[in-house]
């Protein structure tokens, strides 16, 4: 129900310049900012409450899911959502793919803005930048682009569908690695994962799918496959390059026939991705979808409860942080400060609650 509401809500965000859906444009999100922010906060909060309930009652839900695994299809409802509710990156992916596969130019040297009069310039953000993503992403983005036969609306949904395949694939890998429904639900039902992957269509899930696939093969001692898929992951968005040290150490351990505590390996992967995620704050700023990097490994090792729940709190904060722009229409000044406050507020609350419970137990 929440997913359906979120999907319908997304259509209130249609850009006035988005000519392909001008009949659906209402201007609601621009003219009724307070109401829009309120609905968003309500939906996201409800989504997180349901998520926590799902995790707390995973045994109850596991019976239902085992009886009918098609229930996972409900998670895919946001595929039909308008993608630019929180981020315009999907438009940028399409523009980049168009440069290579339609104009036959190199997206690393030619910017979308150089194609004057291209209608996508009306609503594509960061059109004055060359491609930011790895060649692996640009190459595979040709699949959804070419399948859309130049129809823009179709390309949006095909891109989202294409990205959702990696979301499903990641879920299946988590199941294969952990054999834990808790881990699968922790990942697949996460509001952050669903919103950033199925609504906004961020390609971070593609990078993390290949990283997980690499570690899956590594665990099965198929080293060459593992190296290949880690390389593919790096070529999607570069970030997983920071997994290389852990990867090499694990390979050495495998060759030395040493016993490997895989949960520890995943936890170290989580920590390294978390470090890069936090360092993004110094480079530019923390984008909520970056949380997909550490979270993909945290779900493989969910026994570190403090880390798990503090990270879930952080994902809640990251989702809430969108509301400051939604309300003010600005990314700067007070809006930015409130955004930062939103990001870390739930984490602080969690730690205060945790400390409170510890104190009570001691008393």
């Amino acid at each position, binding site marked *: 129900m929440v997913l359906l509401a979120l999907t319908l809500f997304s259509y209130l965000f249609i850009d006035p310049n988005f000519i392909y859906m001008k009949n659906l444009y209402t201007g609601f999100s621009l003219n009724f900012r307070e109401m829009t922010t309120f609905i968003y906060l309500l939906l996201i909060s409800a989504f997180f409450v349901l998520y926590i309930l799902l995790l707390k009652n995973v045994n109850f839900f596991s019976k239902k899911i085992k009886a009918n695994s098609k229930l996972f299809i409900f998670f895919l409802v946001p595929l039909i959502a308008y993608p630019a509710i929180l981020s315009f990156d999907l438009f940028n992916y399409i523009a980049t793919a168009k440069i290579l596969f339609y*104009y036959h*130019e190199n997206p690393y040297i030619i910017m979308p803005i*150089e194609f004057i009069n291209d209608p996508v310039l009306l609503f594509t953000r960061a059109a004055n930048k060359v491609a930011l993503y790895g060649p692996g992403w640009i190459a595979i983005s040709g699949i959804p682009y070419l399948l859309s036969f130049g129809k823009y609306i179709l390309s949006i949904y095909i891109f989202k569908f294409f990205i959702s395949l990696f979301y499903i694939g990641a879920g299946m890998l988590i199941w294969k690695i952990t054999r834990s429904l808790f881990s699968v639900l922790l990942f697949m039902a996460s509001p952050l994962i669903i919103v950033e992957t199925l609504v906004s269509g961020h390609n971070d899930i593609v990078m993390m799918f290949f990283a997980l696939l690499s570690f899956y093969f590594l665990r099965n001692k198929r080293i060459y496959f593992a190296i290949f898929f880690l390389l593919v992951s790096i070529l999607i968005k570069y970030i997983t390059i920071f997994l290389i040290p852990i990867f090499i150490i694990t390979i050495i351990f495998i060759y030395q026939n040493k016993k490997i505590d895989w949960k520890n390996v995943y936890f170290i992967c989580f920590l390294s991705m978390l470090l890069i995620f936090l360092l993004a704050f110094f480079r530019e700023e923390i984008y909520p979808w970056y949380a997909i990097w550490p979270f993909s490994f945290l779900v493989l090792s969910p026994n570190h409860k403090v880390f798990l729940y503090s990270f879930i709190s952080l994902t809640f904060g990251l989702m809430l942080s969108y509301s400051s722009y939604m309300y003010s229409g600005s990314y700067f000044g007070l809006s930015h400060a409130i955004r930062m406050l939103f990001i870390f507020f739930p984490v602080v609350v969690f730690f205060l609650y945790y400390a409170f419970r510890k104190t009570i137990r001691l008393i």
Partner: protein
Amino acid sequence: MKFKFWIFAIIILVSLSVLRSSHAASSYVLPYPSEMPGSRLYELSQVIENLSQFWNFGSFGKFGYHLKLSDKYIVEGKTLFEYKQYLLAYESIQKSNQYFVKTYPNLQNAKTESKDISEKSQVLNEASIKHIEELEKIKLYTPDIFVWTPEKKPPTKLQIHKLLIESIEIRKKNQ
């Protein structure tokens, strides 16, 4: 008397405006001089330059690649002329020309591919003006003909002004 003054003033103003327009400087910015011949990194830069033609595919990409190198070699030529390295400077201007003549055909290709070339044409036009400005300046302080006589090698007769005039003509075609 007053009438004569006004006639004089108008003549001065008109001639000033004509002079100003004939010396209007192009806003196009040429790059800084990069590695010069003789430098250890020069050979490497040549290899990278040759390889990067594969990276710069597509009509816009090729246009940018050729214009960038034409700019680079005109700056290189100018710097070498200033140091009276006539043979090397002569070769640099020739290279600049070779790259420059390939810019316009790529724009034409882009046009046949239905790409809007208005902005790029403007860039090429401004680049042509800037190149002509620089070539005219070089002509002022270089000899018409220079015989370059290296040690243990036969001399080379460099028709510097002829090359500069040819270079200017190439660029005028694109204005």
